[in-house]
């Protein structure tokens, strides 16, 4: 039962990452439409110009936790790359516990009142005809930090499993290491 936790967390984050990549696509589509309208037909709508910003926020933040799982965050790997499995697991366990969790919890803790204040007034755009949903954009901050915190716990769990030799769960997802990011 407890062993299911990292798997469930990773599934949730995989879903969040798929939302992020869809948003990335729509970021392009909306930005392209804005350009087409502006340069060809000399028109534009404020809400339409603000739309890419919302997709940008989601695309940027929602995949950070899942990228932790796929090993996409860059490391200073002068020593890490040649370390053995146990040593890598020790570094990942300590890093998740002492660096990643404090960072995500801090962001969550301090962004919560910030976001609540925004929800309380249903904060809208600074532009008169803009999208009246800045509070939704701000909500991405606690959501992202929560996702990151849970993924950090999952990574810690996995690293501990490797250390105790319980089962040979890999720290990174299979296939993610040879797939070089541009």
């Amino acid at each position: 039962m407890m062993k299911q936790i990292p798997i469930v967390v990773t599934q949730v984050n995989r879903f969040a990452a798929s939302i992020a990549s869809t948003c990335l696509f729509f970021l392009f589509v909306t930005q392209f439409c804005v350009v087409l309208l502006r340069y060809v037909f000399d028109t534009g709508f404020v809400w339409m110009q603000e739309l890419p910003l919302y997709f940008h926020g989601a695309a940027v933040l929602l995949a950070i936790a899942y990228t932790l799982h796929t090993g996409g965050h860059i490391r200073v790997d002068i020593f890490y790359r040649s370390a053995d499995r146990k040593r890598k697991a020790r570094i990942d366990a300590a890093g998740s516990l002492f660096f990643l969790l404090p960072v995500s919890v801090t962001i969550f803790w301090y962004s919560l009142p910030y976001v609540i204040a925004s929800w309380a007034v249903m904060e809208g755009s600074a532009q008169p005809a803009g999208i009246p949903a800045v509070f939704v954009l701000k909500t991405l901050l606690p959501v992202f930090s929560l996702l990151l915190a849970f993924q950090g716990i999952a990574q810690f769990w996995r690293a501990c499993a490797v250390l105790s030799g319980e089962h040979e769960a890999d720290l990174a997802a299979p296939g993610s290491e040879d797939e070089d990011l541009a």
Partner: protein
Amino acid sequence: MTLLLEHLDLLMLAMSLLMLLFGYPAAFTLGGVALVFAGIGFFSGAAPTMGAIPIRLFGIISNETLIAVPLFIVMGIVLKKARIAEDLLTALGWLFRKVPGGLSVSVTVVGALLAASTGIVGATVVTMGLISLPSLLKAGVSPRLATGSIAAAGTLGQIIPPSIVLVFLADQLSNAYQTSQREMGNFAPDPFSIADLFAAAFLPGLLLVGVYVIYQIAVSLRTDTGGRDRSTGCGAMTAIDVWFAMGPPLALILCVLGAILGGVATPTEAASLGVAGALVLAGNRQLPGRRWLLLVPLSGAFILVLTQFGEALWDGSGSVFTFAVSAIGALAVAGGLFANIIVLFRNGILQNVLKSAVEFTAMVFAIMIGATIFSLVFRDLGGDETVSVLLQDLPGGTLGAVLIVMAVMFALGFFLDFLEIVFVVVPLVAPILLQLPMPDGSPMSPAWLGVMMAVNLQTSFLTPPFGFALFYLRGAAPKEVATADIYLGAAPFVGLQLLVLICLWFFPDIATWLPRYLFS
């Protein structure tokens, strides 16, 4: 003990460098170490203002100029996944087949052209190494020249616009410039934009390409490979094939860059056009038999540009005719783009591209988030004043301060990537450096400083034995290539880099002339 508590800021800097070496992802290491020191600071009397964190983070995601970053990333990954780089390399190898060292020259040119896909040195060097090293060696190029060319070409993309590291560098420099001008009493300075840095980096980038190419030709002439230096796979190519392989990506990159430098479009707008163009190229490459996939959106775009020119020339804006023509053009562009997207979606390439791109974007912005927390805490611990005092008390004025900063960045480049250095070091030192006079006496230009930093870091990535690029090339190169060859191959390129840095120092106009000419 009290001495330690007084210098918490410097201790934090040293500690985070040490912790980074363990190899936990840099984004979270930076943030995590900063939080530990914020805690220590809290108990020893300093008052870290953590409440600024959500405001700063929201500032990152709602910064409209940074929308260009994910778009450029998508553009680069589309070009890469569609194997446009390979096509370009083969085509250029054919084009330069009569030139001595033609294949190594084409590696340099491809590295320069694919700048948009470059964010992280390692990945680019690995890609370039895997694509081109085997064919270079097979063609009889000496391992030293081959590996040196690849390492240099892999780092070249960082300084040639539109590279995403330049977008971030410009963003940081712009903030630093505002701060420095405010402190000097100028409350309405000219804004420093991404386009300014792109324009500033353009000529130095070309200069680097130029000296590389001259060096490669000279070495090939001297060693005289007797005509063996030529790609084996492109004997059967015709001139038309070559232009079809080379023309469209070349035109795309030049259009994107031209739109930004010409002041026609913002970097974000140009980036979205770049993504559209890259998608069309990639979709067309999947089904080479159907040229309409390329021709329909291309002719649509052509119609649109023509009508815009027509309106500008004859002042015919608003007439029904131009509107109808524009509508047809827009339909052709949108329809052709849609068809190409469908092709890419069916082949699964689009999903693949988006998955890579979103992870890459997440990685880049995670570093920015971690580094933001780091700088906030560092400032609260008094780090800004410490750095400012250190830099202003240096002997030698501007020369001393710039040299020290450059040396520190050079050393940091041995184990940190461009992005971490940009996010951590630039906000610390740039506001102070920008208040000093330039070597020729005029106030320091952020464009010049940015280009100096970029070329300097690029040199650092190339320098044996610690340079990042060499490290990754070692991993991608076959075992027959000796590590000593990689080091010796890179050394002359380091010399060329230093030469360009010296030129930039004595002739700052190389960097500052183009932005001045274009934008003022």
